């Protein structure tokens, strides 16, 4: 099915040029990297990669990287006064319970990391496709779940505020490298496979 802009394989020449550039840069680096680079280049050239071009890294819309169906979003933002303390207490209360995120159904993982002596929040997530189209839905259906978390940050406009997209984009830092083990599967795909897997095992149990 035509769901992706097909990625044109790079020309040999373009790859060779990139390789030459990397070699040049690594020449001045530590020995351990230099040796390793040559092995890697051999592997890349031998085409031992098992990945289809369609799952190479691409853009996840406005900012961020994407592998197949899975995108990454990471932002680092100063805490509002008292924000770190609030958020830490909240996360400890939640203790990993994010049932509203379960409902979203497109978030693979999500982490909250406190940086620089609790002055900044690092938020990173892996999610399906693009969040842009859904941000209005989040605001309509789970606004509290988001506001309670991100109101800890300086200048959080509130999820209902149309400027929230700009706020996120402002602090977002796109990954230079992004790897996903199963780039062809969304959270829902996996949910479905789990159901099928369970049914298949029950079926096999019965006919064994």
């Amino acid at each position, binding site marked *: *099915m035509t*769901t992706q802009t097909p990625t044109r394989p790079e020309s040999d020449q373009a790859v060779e040029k990139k390789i030459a550039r990397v070699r040049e840069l690594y020449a001045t680096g530590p020995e351990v990297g230099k040796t390793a680079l040559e092995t890697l280049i051999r592997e890349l050239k031998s085409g031992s990669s098992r990945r289809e071009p369609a799952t190479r890294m691409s853009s996840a819309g406005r900012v961020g990287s994407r592998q197949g169906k899975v995108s990454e979003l990471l932002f680092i933002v100063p805490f509002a006064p008292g924000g770190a303390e609030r958020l830490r207490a909240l996360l400890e209360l939640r203790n990993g319970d994010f049932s509203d995120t379960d*409902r979203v*159904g497109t978030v693979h993982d999500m982490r909250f990391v406190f940086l620089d002596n609790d002055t900044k929040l690092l938020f990173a997530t892996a999610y399906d496709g693009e969040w842009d189209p*859904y941000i*209005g839905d989040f605001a*309509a259906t789970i606004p509290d779940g988001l506001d309670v978390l991100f109101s800890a940050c300086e200048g959080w406009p509130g999820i209902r505020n149309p400027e929230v997209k700009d706020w996120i984009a402002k602090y977002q830092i796109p990954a230079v490298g992004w790897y996903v083990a199963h780039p062809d599967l*969304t959270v829902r795909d996996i949910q479905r496979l789990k159901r099928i897997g369970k049914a298949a095992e029950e079926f096999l149990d019965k006919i064994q």
Partner: protein
Amino acid sequence: MLSIKESAGETLSMRAPALETSDIQATVLRPRPKPYCGEYVVLRIGNAEQGREMLRRVLPHIAPADEWWAPSALGWLGIAFTFEGLKALGVPQASLDSFPIEFRQGMAARAAILHDFGANAPANWEYPFGTPDVHVALAIYAKGNQDLQEVLEIARKSHHDLPQIAVVYRMAFGELPEGRNPFGFKDGLHNPHVEGSGPAATTREEPSIKPGEFVMGYPDERGETANVPIPLELRRNGTFVAIRKFYMDVAAFRKYLRAQASSPEEEELLAAKMVGRWRSGAPLVLTPDHDDPSLGGDANRNNNFRYADDKKGLKCPFSAHIRRVNPRDALKDDVVATNLHHFLRRGTNYGSPLPDGVLEDDGAERGGVFLLIGAHLQRQFEFVQSQWVTDGNFISHGTEQDPLIGNNDGEGVFTIPKVPVRRRLQGLPSFVSVRGGEYCFMPGLRALRWIADLKPMMEADDVRSR
């Protein structure tokens, strides 16, 4: 200076005011006449003052929603502008800049988001779609050909002596027998009801939708009232239109059904499963096993249903066209706010019908032109197109697309839930191809006057946000 910041009061929810139907174009709120014929005309404006002159002349004939089909009117004229068109008319820069990004970019530039790949790619569209030559779109509806010609004459006279106004596209349309679309299905059945636009035609299971979703100047489902584009005079009672012209490959549709089915009855069933309705318009959810023409023809009943009793899709497949583009209550356990993704559909058909029973393509162009109308292109048309029509993730169907209007390439699949074993059709081709499309702004009548009265080199301060 223009500013997009406005008083906070306007963005707060308020009691829905009565719609100013006399200022809103009829095309936005009213279904097309019945029977109908008509024509789309696209103009290119080479000179702003001539453009405004054209607009001043045509303005008295633009149909408002309150007397849209007054007996005195010959036909019904609607008008809308692309971003290029607004520029060509001399709309001030600050005002232009205040339009939403998707409108400023235009539909062709949004191809990646809309999944307009392959045969549907803008590169393959008919001229002038997707080029900067589309400025003004006129839609003319009439009950008969004679009336149509008279309205066309009005339109012609609005610019025949203005050398910088060029007609770059004309396209006639008309009703097919029994009010069916080229595939043979009754259409135009499932528009949401706009709160305050008059009594709903039917008793409805579905709630009315706040008018701000479809017309600017009123609170929308989020309780907000649009604050762009500026100034208020320009946006009030205006809206946006996504125009999509489709070619429909009726022979391919029939051949595919023939190949998948072992009887004419089964062909009909598979076709209904793809659409979600039988040919008469009767919804599968209400009559899952056979068509029911009386139900299909009853406007009080044919749109009065929900999916609560069909949670497994055994009556109407999850992937059926009408369940995708309007999931009603089907996604209520998800985080999706279905009420944010409605738009109004005004569809017209073109071309001659492929005679019954013919399975070979006759080479003729036939299909439909759809005006998809709403105040928020991004979360309405674009959302539905990218998330619901050309993807299957929202219904846990992987990459499965809409069987009818999805961008399938011969490898498409369509899943029909069934007990004990689901049926999955394989190898779906594209039954429709996009021939072109545009994003247009369809202003209210006073806003049209505001545009028409713009002065050359108008001072920006004069249009400061109000």
